C-alpha cells in the first residue's frame, strides 16, 4: 500500500520515514506540492480539492506501478490530500527510490506530470477578493503527459 489519499493534513517527514522504512536504494527524489499564494487570477486564500473516491486510489496505484516498470524503481509512495487546503499546507507528496539518481528524478517527475492530468482531482480556488474559481486544466500539463507517453524525455 503506497498510496494515501486523505482529508487531514500530513507530515512530509513522516511520509518520507514510511517510504524509507519500506524500501531502500541509492537515490531518493521527492516532490512536495504546496498551495500557491497567487495564481493568474490573483491572490489565493485557500483551496478546495474534490476527488473521486476509489478511482483516485486506483489511478495512483497504477501510476506507481507503471513508474516502477518504466524506471526500474525500488520503491515509491504517493500522498494526496482532498478537502480544504490552507496556505502553506502540502497538497501532494511523491517519493521515489531508485539505484541511480537519473531514474529517481525521471520516475518522480513522470508520476507528478501524469498525476496532474490522470488522477481524478478538481481544484477550486477561494480568492482573497471573495471569488470562487474552478481551476482550468492547463494545456502545458496535457502536453507534458503526452510527451511522457511518447517517450520524449528518455
Amino acid at each position, binding site marked *: 500500500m503506497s498510496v494515501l489519499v486523505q482529508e487531514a493534513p500530513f507530515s512530509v517527514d513522516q511520509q518520507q520515514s514510511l517510504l524509507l522504512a519500506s524500501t531502500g536504494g541509492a537515490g531518493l527524489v521527492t516532490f512536495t*506540492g504546496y498551495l500557491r499564494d497567487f495564481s493568474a487570477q490573483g491572490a489565493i486564500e485557500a483551496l478546495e*480539492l*474534490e*476527488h*473521486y473516491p*476509489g*478511482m483516485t486510489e*486506483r489511478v495512483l496505484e497504477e501510476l506507481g506501478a507503471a513508474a516502477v516498470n518504466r524506471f526500474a524503481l525500488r520503491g515509491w509512495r504517493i500522498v*494526496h490530500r482532498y478537502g480544504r487546503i490552507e496556505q502553506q499546507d502540502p*497538497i*501532494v507528496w511523491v517519493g521515489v527510490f531508485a539505484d541511480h539518481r537519473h531514474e529517481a528524478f525521471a520516475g518522480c517527475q513522470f508520476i*507528478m506530470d501524469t*498525476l*496532474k*492530468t*490522470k*488522477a*481524478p*482531482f*478538481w*481544484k*477550486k480556488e477561494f480568492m482573497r477578493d471573495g471569488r470562487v474559481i*474552478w*481551476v*482550468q*486544466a*492547463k494545456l502545458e500539463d*496535457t502536453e507534458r503527459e503526452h510527451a511522457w507517453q511518447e517517450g520524449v524525455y528518455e
Partner: protein
Amino acid sequence: MLTVRFFSLIREALNCEELQVEHHASLLTLDDLKDNLVESGGEQWREALYQPNVVHALNQRVVNTDHELKDGDEVAFFPPMTGG
C-alpha cells in the same frame, strides 16, 4: 441499475452528485445514456454533459462514449482533472 456520478463543475451545474438509472436494453452505450439523461433533464443537462472536454469514466476508468454498458456499471462525468 446504473450508478451515474457527477463531479466538480458538472456536479454544480446539475446540482446533482449521483443518481440511479435503470438499465434498459436501449441504453447500449454511454452515448445512449447521455441522450437519455438529457431527454429527462432538459437544456441544463444538455449544456453540462455536452460541453467540450467532458471526461467519461466507466467503472472508474476513462473511456470513450461508444463504450457499451452493462447492468451494475458505474458511470461518471467530470471536467478535465486538475490534481497535484
